[in-house]
Structure formats: C-alpha cells, structure tokens
C-alpha cells in the first residue's frame, strides 16, 4: 500500500513539475493554460488520491474524493473563463498560430 501511495505522490508531483515547466517555457496565454490545467487535473487528482488512500477509507477519504470531483468540475470552467477573456480581448498569440476552420465540414452524425 505504501508503495502505491508513494507512486501516486511521485506521479502527482511529476505532473505539477511539468505544469510549471510548461508555464515558464510556452509562448502565449493559451499555450500556458494548457500546461496549468494539466497540473490541476492529473497532478492534484493523483496527490489527493494518494492522500485519500493514506487517510484510510471512511471519513477523510470521502472528503478528499469530493475535492477531486470539485476540482475536475471547477478547473476547466475557470480555464475556459480565462481563455475566453483573453480571446475576446484579442490577446497576443504566439507567432505562427493558425486558425483552422472546420465549420463547413461534414459533421459526425449528419
């Protein structure tokens, strides 16, 4: 059990590390949002899962699992709000950013 917990913690820290590296290295707001949403979803998810296993099942684990659910709902919503604000303000995008228009193509279920 300890091994599983350590692996989960290591995985969570790894993804947070990647998130920070991405935040520093990527060029514009949108690309950086990719890095930060990632460390929240998997990084925080794995860390909280490790804590839930460590705390033992009933009382504390339920709260931690509820926290995971909350983060997985709130995090993309917040990311969307930030990205939308940047998009509507016409924030600077990285050079070479393409706009692909797939509106005219056949939809999956037509």
């Amino acid at each position: 059990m300890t091994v599983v917990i350590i692996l989960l913690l290591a995985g969570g820290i790894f993804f947070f590390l990647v998130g920070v590296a991405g935040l520093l290295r990527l060029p514009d707001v949108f690309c950086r949002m990719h890095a930060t949403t990632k460390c929240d979803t998997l990084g925080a998810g794995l860390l909280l899962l490790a804590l839930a296993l460590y705390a033992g099942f009933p009382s504390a684990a339920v709260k931690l699992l509820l926290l995971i659910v909350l983060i997985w709902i709130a995090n993309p919503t917040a990311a969307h709000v930030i990205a939308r604000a940047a998009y509507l303000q016409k924030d600077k995008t990285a050079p070479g950013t393409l706009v692909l228009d797939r509106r005219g193509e056949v939809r999956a279920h037509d």
Partner: protein
Amino acid sequence: MVKRTPSGTVFWGTAAALFLFWLLLTWRLHWQHLVVGALCSLAVAAFNRELFLSKKERPLFTLRTAWGFGVYLLRLIIAVFQANWEVAKIVLSRRLDISPCFVKFRTDLCKPLYRVILGNSITLTPGTLTVEIKDDLYVVHALTQTGADEVATWELAKHLHALEETENAS
C-alpha cells in the same frame, strides 16, 4: 429574470440531496450534527429557490443514462491520462515542438448541458482548450495541429451525442 415557482418535490429533493452531502462531510450520526445539518439544508434550499432547474433543463435520470455517463467518465479519464502524457513529452522536449492553432467547428449536440459537458471535457483534456462556445459553434485552442484535427471529430463527442439520443428517445 423569470420568477419561478418550483414544486414542493423539487424543494424537498434538493434539501435531501444537500442533507446527504452534509452527512458525507461530517460523517457522524450524533443527533446534534443531524439537527444542524437538516436545518442548514432546508435553509439553503429555501434561499436558492429561484435557482432550481425546471423540468425541461434537468437531465433525465434513468439507469441507462447513468450507465452511459459512467462509461463516458471512464473514457474521459483514460483520454486525460493519454493526452497528459503527450503534453508532458512536448513540454519536456528540448525543442518545444508545438504548432498552436485555433480550430472552429460545429457540434450536433442540442441541449446546453451536453454542450457544457463537451466544452469542459475538451478543456479537461490537456492540449485542447475551449475558448468560446456560441450556440453550436466551438472555438478550441490546441497546442498541436494534430490535436486540433482530432478534437473536431472526437470519439467522446460522438459518445455524448449517442447519450443525448437515448435521453430524447426515452
């Protein structure tokens, strides 16, 4: 805003759900906890009367839709793991191999709830980020161009569409 007068069952149902949530958080069955919890959930339900969803907005809850959502969540988690790995490789590679782009596409999902779920799923999956949803038009930012090509014809979007169909049929 339209003033709504929700029925009593919705009120009691909300209060009961809140009370269940309270029980999960306190995890004690002492009578003091129960009384305070019951009072609080009734008060919260009463204060938020105007925010209750009408019957049309609520998703239909049947065994089939619940099962469908369970499968969807599982597939989403798998997709998140895979995409996370892809983005981690890009971020940690020496020459940042990205081709950022916006992709615009239309969805055939009809209900707002399903559109929100799709938008949030896209954002949750690393490498793609929902920037704007306007009616059935999605503007998604992708870290790589292959990611952008995939998101417009996403497997999980088809899954959601099938779910919506079953809900409409039943």
